[in-house]
């Protein structure tokens, strides 16, 4: 009993250490990771200053875990997942469409393997710490410059609406602020992107609402709610924690030009004869 109690106290002490110094010294109790709105860096227009170099701290698996725990969204899809783990994504069913993707569930077919931009929210999911992104912000725009495949998202905050007759790998992003949260509405996707390396997919009806909420000077709580009425039975949400890179870090420009020559490095699954280099 005494051991358990000590362990509990030790855990509590560790929890306090993990909080930001500002939160740890606060007089009033705050939820871990939450900081007072007055503590956030801000631009002259009063909005939180999201500028700087950031990376996904959570990792994709953590995002999946968050998604699974997100209130009964899980829908079992049996062996669709390579590891036999039921996928949390609420696909309509194992339709002919999904069957097709089962057939092409091979890294060769990943659009990223062909140097395409990853789309949204996959770009934000890039492996933890590997590929940071730079945010520059003023009162009219937020622009996100991703190291991975020099992807760029320009997000106007002028109340404008999505264009017509426009389809893009990254869709079309329009931002607005809800309190201290930057909300980005993303539509106009071309339906060519995957959500991950497991062939989870969307089509051109994908619609994403991203929320960027600074929880401290060096952390952003990111969430993306994805809906696609022709692929999923209901919207689902993934959450990531974004962390600021050390001040000395900078983007090291990344490019992808191997194209068809690189895919030979990807593992070949049985039955895939689409690789022209086989």
């Amino acid at each position: 009993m005494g051991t358990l109690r000590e362990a509990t106290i030790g855990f509590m002490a560790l929890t306090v250490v993990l909080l930001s110094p500002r939160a740890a010294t606060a007089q009033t109790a705050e939820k871990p990771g939450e900081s007072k709105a007055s503590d956030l860096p801000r631009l002259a227009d009063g909005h939180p200053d999201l500028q700087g170099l950031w990376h996904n701290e959570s990792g994709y698996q953590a995002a999946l875990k968050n998604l699974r725990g997100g209130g009964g969204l899980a829908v079992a899809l049996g062996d669709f997942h390579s590891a036999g783990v039921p996928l949390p994504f609420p696909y309509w069913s194992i339709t002919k469409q999904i069957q097709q993707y089962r057939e092409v569930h091979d890294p060769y077919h990943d659009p990223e393997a062909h140097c395409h931009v990853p789309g949204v929210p996959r770009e934000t999911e890039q492996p933890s710490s590997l590929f940071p992104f730079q945010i520059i912000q003023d009162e009219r725009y937020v622009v996100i410059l991703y190291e991975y495949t020099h992807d760029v998202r320009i997000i106007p905050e002028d109340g404008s609406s999505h264009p017509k007759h426009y389809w893009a790998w990254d869709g079309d992003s329009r931002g607005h602020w809800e309190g201290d949260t930057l909300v980005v509405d993303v539509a106009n996707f071309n339906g060519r992107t995957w959500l991950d390396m497991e062939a989870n997919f969307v089509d051109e009806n994908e619609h994403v609402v991203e929320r960027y909420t600074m929880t401290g000077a060096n952390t952003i709580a990111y969430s993306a709610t994805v809906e696609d009425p022709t692929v999923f039975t209901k919207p689902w949400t993934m959450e990531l924690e974004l962390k600021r890179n050390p001040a000395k870090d900078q983007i090291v420009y990344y490019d992808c030009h191997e194209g068809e020559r690189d895919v030979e490095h990807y593992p070949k699954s049985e039955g895939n004869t689409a690789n022209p280099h086989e």
Partner: protein
Amino acid sequence: MIVATAVAIATSARAKTQSSYSPPRLSDGTPDFRGIWQARVPAYLNLEGHPAEAGVRASPSIVIDPADGWIPYLPDALKQRAKNYESRATTDPAINCFQAGVPRAIFLPTPFQIFQSAGRLAIVYTDNHSYRIVLASLIPHDDGIDFFMGDSRGHWEADTLVIDVTDLGDQTWLDAAGNYHSDQLHVVERYTLLGPNTMKYEATMTDPKVYARPWTVRLLLYRARRSRARIIEDECIDGPDGVWHHVSPIDPKAVLHHDYPAELAQQGNHP
């Protein structure tokens, strides 16, 4: 991350670069270059003066130094340029959808957008979703690593933005006519606002392996004034002819070269 405001400004530099126009400024006092800009000259086809030919408008040279308008190639380099010109239909790096490099990206026939806030500046090009983050001159260049768009360091000389670009590699050309550089290329760019919607662009190229002496281009950049103007996504795919194509925004119902389910169906793997 910081484009440092130059405290000490050489008098000669001020006299040389200052225009009579007093531009709007950011809160930190630096001139406001934000907006969507584009060149209107056909220099992307050939930055030297050239007569009209199939698909190419005649144009005067944008080379202002040397005064004769010709790039001062070393003799062997001039021969290489001639070879590049002859084979340009298949050897221009842009055909492979490589990023354009500097200064070629600036005078492509597609717009670019400058983003700027106190202490930060980035340039985003339509072509190939290329971008450059302009760091402060006091941060040393990333020597030893080459990038298609180089490594950019900026500072202010009066109201002129001066960007020093190195690490450009030798994988890009200067235009579609085979004008080229080596991995020794060093570019100094000068951006000066002349009015609300006009900017002067100058770039001086130094490359001891290819040029007999430094040389300079000058052109005007114009602001896209429509309120709805914006940079649209430009993504490349390899077409069925083996040639790369700029395809976005693409109709999602269009058939790409790699229609994976269809490919597999053709091969009898489809259920």
